[in-house]
């Protein structure tokens, strides 16, 4: 039982924390949010220089080999100021998919430039009828003489509007398979759409797109890779959500301490105090659940699924409550676009929707053998 950060982790957190406070406050996000890209490629390269894009990959393929907890540390900080760069989409989703499902040559080809900050990636798994289950995949891959042809549609591809390469899931002879697709290839069309949190995603149409044999990521069990990556995505969203909730709590408490009505700080009203405490409770519970999910993200599937689903369900409840109450406590100002708190509400919607919503994770959690176990003392 040990949750202390190592010296290395403390340094990482400190560096990221300095970055978000000094170089990436919410104002930077505001400036970027209506641009066509929605983030800054220069900052992306900076992140590469700092080694952040290499964090969770094996050293053998140019990564730092850090545990997923470290990705969590970074994303938690990112969540505090709504950092816009596609770390989750490019590093966590597409990056881990390529690492887990691809060959060393494929990692060299697609991961190395991304780790160097020269490219960004995206993972296209969501379809119109997927709901929250990435294995609901109707996109089809068929074998050709010297490769494959992909046909179908993908929706809500995070960073899909800008990614240099797209990792796409499709059914090959009924089984899930993963392919790396060049967005400039013939038959690929993508439409950039703005999301509620002002980041961008792509609606992707694949019209009999030709992909070469070496663009197929030859994992033995690509479905398992996809599920694992989806859980990585969930754990990343949870970590980002913890940072977000924390920032929202802090700005709300600050507002309660400064805003005056009826001749006193509104933070002196007991009802608002208790509301803030209830927000604090959700923050602490979510943070606690998050630590477990991050530790278990690299672990065996059963412990991973249990921890991730428990934490994602807690995030859903906690982030919803905290952001909604933060707006309520801000009063009229909370309803304006000008107030940052609304940006956090919207980001919370995105984090709660992606990688399984509350009911999806409750149902998954309750379907695991850990739920039905007779003894109440199973490992956490």
């Amino acid at each position: 039982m040990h949750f202390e950060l190592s010296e290395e982790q403390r340094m990482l957190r400190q560096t990221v924390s300095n970055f978000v406070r000094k170089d990436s406050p919410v104002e930077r996000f505001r400036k970027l949010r209506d641009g066509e890209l929605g983030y800054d490629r220069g900052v992306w390269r900076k992140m590469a220089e700092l080694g952040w894009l290499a964090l969770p990959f094996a050293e053998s393929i140019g990564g730092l080999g850090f545990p997923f907890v470290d990705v969590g540390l970074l994303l938690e900080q990112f969540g505090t100021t709504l950092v816009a760069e596609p770390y989750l989409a490019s590093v966590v989703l597409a990056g881990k998919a390529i690492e887990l499902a691809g060959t060393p040559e494929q990692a060299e080809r697609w991961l190395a430039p991304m780790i160097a900050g020269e490219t960004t990636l995206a993972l296209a798994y969501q379809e119109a009828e997927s709901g929250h289950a990435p294995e609901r995949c109707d996109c089809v891959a068929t074998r050709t003489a010297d490769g494959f042809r992909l046909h179908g549609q993908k929706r809500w591809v995070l960073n899909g509007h800008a990614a240099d390469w797209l990792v796409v899931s499709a059914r090959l002879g009924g089984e899930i398979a993963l392919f790396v697709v060049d967005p400039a290839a013939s038959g690929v069309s993508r439409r950039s759409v703005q999301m509620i949190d002002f980041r961008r995603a792509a609606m992707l149409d694949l019209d009999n797109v030709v992909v070469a044999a070496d663009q197929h990521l030859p994992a033995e069990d690509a479905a398992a890779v996809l599920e694992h990556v989806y859980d990585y995505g969930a754990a990343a969203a949870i970590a980002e959500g913890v940072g977000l909730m924390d920032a929202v709590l802090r700005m709300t408490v600050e507002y309660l301490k400064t805003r005056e009505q009826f001749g006193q700080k509104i933070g002196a009203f007991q009802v608002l105090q208790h509301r803030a405490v209830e927000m604090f409770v959700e923050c602490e519970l979510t943070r606690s659940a998050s630590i477990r999910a991050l530790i278990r993200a690299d672990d065996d599937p059963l412990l991973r699924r249990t921890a991730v689903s428990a934490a994602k369900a807690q995030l859903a409840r906690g982030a919803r409550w905290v952001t909604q109450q933060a707006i309520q406590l801000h009063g009229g100002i909370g309803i304006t676009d000008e107030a940052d708190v609304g940006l956090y509400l919207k980001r919370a919607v995105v984090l709660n929707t992606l990688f399984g919503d509350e009911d999806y994770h409750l149902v998954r959690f309750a379907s695991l053998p850990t739920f039905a176990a007779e003894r109440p003392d199973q490992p956490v």
Partner: protein
Amino acid sequence: MTMDLSFSAEHLAFRREVREWIPGALPPHLAQKAKTGQGFSMDEVMEWHKILHRRGWVAPHWPTQYGGPGFDATRRFILSEELELAGAPTLSPFGLSMVGPLLMQFGNEAQKARFLPTILTGEEVWCQGYSEPNAGSDLASLMVRAEDDGAGNFIVNGQKTWTTYAQYADWIFCLVRTRIGEKKQQGISFLLIDMKTPGVSVRPNLTIGGTHAFCDTFFENAVVPQENVVGPLHGGWTVAKALLGHERTLIAAVGTSRRALAGVKALCRSVHTPSGALLDDPLMRAKIARLDVRLQALQMANYRALAGAELGRAPGPESSILKLVGSEILQQCFELAMEAIGHNGLSWFNEGVVPDEQQGIPSSFCYLRATTIYGGSNEIQKNIIAKWILGLPA
């Protein structure tokens, strides 16, 4: 006469009349927006205002002497409910429901003759200037000053916030400070200001819902005739307070929530899961049922308030909860709608990306966080009930 949950034959006939009239009256472009739940522009709202006015139904709560139709409480309720259920544009309340009734109660004959007719026709649009950056829930702390220039005018200076739709308004009714240094509820006057007055400027602000509803309105040495004070000079607090009692039985917005909840059910019928329509998913179904049960209880509370009003009763305790509960239920309807549409709820004003009827949901979901804040936040509502209905000590 035994208890009865039905409307009288007369009232049912009126309901049919309204229901049959709306589809023909609502212009196609408005009907399309109503169907898909998208927001209406101010022009569209005023277009509908004028249609209702031609039918004589724009101000159902106005007495006949001022051009109202002389409806009883139930007719007013039915009309409002049918309009909500049809998804017709919500009329701007600032003229019809706020300054209009106040003018009838506190205005002099000249003021009534000048302002009431154009409110009715929609020729002049009004907005409200109450809140200020440092006077929100604590409205009496307001600071906008109106100083006597000795020549029959006030010189107005300061800033009002949340002046909703001020960018479209011809007139603003304001609470301003006309005398300083007294108990803060005193020395406030209720003043009507022409938005074209030099020195008045408006800055529309984006809301959390991505629309331009709110404005800041600035006054810089704006010269306003003293005859534009409504009610007693320095006695504006009494005027403003009178408004709080108006039309309390209608603010539950039950019709709007019922329409929203029916919309959620329709969405859930159209969304597919591996085991069938989302509406048949036990968890989603139970959530909708839980909300529906609560909404139906609120609807009954509303009916009780209405039946009481019909008998000329003062609003009973059941009226006090209408806004409190109604605002929460409406928010919950849109939370469920967001949950139902899943990833499509991520779309922010993208044309043609999600089905038309889902297009407006994310923005409404965000904007409706306001319902528990405006018109006296729910915390303020609870303070009031604690004090005035439960009699708890201050």
